[in-house]
């Protein structure tokens, strides 16, 4: 029974093939002799098969638009950077103009 409890905790990883080799062999050996755990494993395999069958591909329009909000944000950020640089440059020109005007006066 203790072994069943131990194996039971590994069954989901077993059906998902996430176990290390040693654990995998341990589970297989146990399943070979335990009808109850075999039935548990069968239930998990049914769930896994159902899960994989129910996975659908992403429709093209959803796939194509998945990163749209990131692109919009990045593009807005680029526009802000450009606007900042333009203002900074204009201020520099203005400052130089003021200096020249002061010198002329």
């Amino acid at each position: 029974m203790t072994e069943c409890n131990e194996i039971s905790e590994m069954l989901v990883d077993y059906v998902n093939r996430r176990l290390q080799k040693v654990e995998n062999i341990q589970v297989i050996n146990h399943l070979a002799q335990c009808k109850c755990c075999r039935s548990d494993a069968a239930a998990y395999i049914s769930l896994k098969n159902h899960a994989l069958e129910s996975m659908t591909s992403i429709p093209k329009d959803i796939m194509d638009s998945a990163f749209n909000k990131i692109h919009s944000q990045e593009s807005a950020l680029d526009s802000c950077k450009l606007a900042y640089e333009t203002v900074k440059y204009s201020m520099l020109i203005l400052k130089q103009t003021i200096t020249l005007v002061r010198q002329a006066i």
Partner: protein
Amino acid sequence: MKAEKRGDANGFYYDSCAENTLIDKAKKGNTSAFEELMSIHLKVIYNYINSRIAEKEDVKDILQETMLAVWKGIKSFDSNSSFKTWCFSITKRKVADYYREAYKNATIPIKEVEDFLAVEDEKDSIDTKLIIEKAIASLNQTEKDIVFFAFNAQLSYSEISEIISIPVGTIKSKMSSIKEKLKKQLANGGGL
């Protein structure tokens, strides 16, 4: 360096080294690397959102919101934990936000309500596939999430625990109870 893709049909990705390279590039603001990185996980993320939300336009919007949130948060992502788990935590939060908003506005149809699997007198209920679908449909949302993250996303108990904020021991016992429910329904030919 172009990352080598070794994911299976469901988009699972096993080359953590290449994944880390993409994460590092994305952290530096490289959107192409980010898109390549996310394309690995996009199918499972999409399927989770699609399983929770009925309206196609809303699924599209939540997927975009999720991508944006992952993009915004990637700089603070701690590479010591699993990127996939972290992405699912964000996805689950975005879906929860959607339902919070839906509850406030009370206008958005909830997929579970429309689920044809809830129909008791389904003609083919003897069919095993349908029995499994009915068994899953009869689960509460937390149990459905556990099944999704365990079998669709193929995460470990500890990763699931991280995403849905329930102790590992509780996840294990819930999984065991889900399995017992399924076995019972399979034995009864689908009857509850």
